[in-house]
């Protein structure tokens, strides 16, 4: 009969192999991070490329956006940022609507001003029962043309674009927000973001 120690080793090895096999299987479905040019800012030759998966209603995303904006202001030539949507619809009730407004702003070339307004004033709209009035106000401030915005919001492919980003994130192993890929290295949360960015830009804010 097999000894207990030998059986233990076989079980441990079997569990490790099974977990690694599932991990490899999941990684086979990973899609590439193709850039959506409407939601990119910064030089293509920049030494640091950041792809962020954002939920506009998550407070940690607002905190991360503030930090990235600060460091981008200090090193505009060294950073390229791309935004992907990752709305956590089960946790945040306005996140999908915020994403569709941001996407419609992006289609008019106004993604970044809309993004900034959404994250900077998150505390104002987040507790509201309906936030659409405030999002429309932000769109106006961002310079988005309103008739085109209304048409865009009614279009089903806007939500589809948002969901495509979310599916891409899931295929890359994104589970929570904010998740960043800094030169393809995954980091989650603003603490890890700053730890990683400090390696490129010592004494980051």
């Amino acid at each position: 009969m097999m000894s207990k120690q030998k059986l233990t080793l076989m079980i441990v090895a079997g569990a490790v192999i099974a977990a690694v096999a599932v991990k490899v299987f999941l990684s086979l479905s990973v899609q590439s991070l193709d850039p959506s040019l409407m939601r990119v800012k910064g030089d293509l030759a920049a030494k640091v490329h950041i792809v962020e998966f954002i939920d506009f209603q998550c407070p940690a995303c607002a905190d991360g956006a503030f930090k990235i904006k600060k460091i981008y202001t200090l090193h505009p030539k060294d950073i390229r940022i791309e935004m992907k949507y990752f709305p956590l619809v089960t946790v945040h009730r306005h996140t999908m609507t915020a994403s569709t407004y941001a996407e419609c702003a992006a289609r008019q070339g106004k993604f970044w001003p809309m993004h900034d307004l959404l994250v900077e004033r998150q505390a104002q709209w987040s507790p509201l029962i309906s936030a659409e009035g405030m999002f429309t106000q932000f769109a106006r401030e961002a310079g988005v043309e309103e008739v085109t915005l209304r048409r865009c919001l009614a279009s089903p492919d806007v939500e589809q674009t948002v969901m495509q980003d979310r599916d891409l994130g899931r295929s890359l192993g994104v589970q929570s927000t904010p998740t960043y890929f800094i030169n393809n290295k995954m980091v989650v949360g603003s603490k890890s973001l700053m730890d990683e960015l400090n390696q490129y830009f010592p004494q980051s804010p």
Partner: protein
Amino acid sequence: MIFPLLRIVVGSILLASGFSKVIHPYQNFLYVVQAYQLLPGWAETLAAIVMPWVELMIGLFLVLGLWTIQVLRWALMLFAVFIVVVAQALMRVLPLDHCGCFGSWIQATPRQIIVFDSFCFLVLMVLLRHWTKTRRFSLDERFTR
């Protein structure tokens, strides 16, 4: 019958919890560990990599019933750690929406999870006290005949 069943249920919970974290990038669990603001940076990374494997192995051995008594003690320690970590977060009123204990599969608040962990801790104490009954339907039985 109830004792081996409870052993398998608690083991399955740990197994599922560990597995859901192990198959995804460790950075997701690191984010959860960081939210508890308890460890220095290097220890947070270490915990994020090691803890899911510990959960998975303890869960697996509990389900199979191999080294049952030793694994029950390890599981007790693990749940004690969970309880302390969540309790300190509650006492410090840390802004945690959910505990992050089960990856993205189940989302429970810290208050819910401390009740659940305490219940599991009590169950494990009972199982350890009645270890002869707990060892029924286990691989250990094969080696004690």
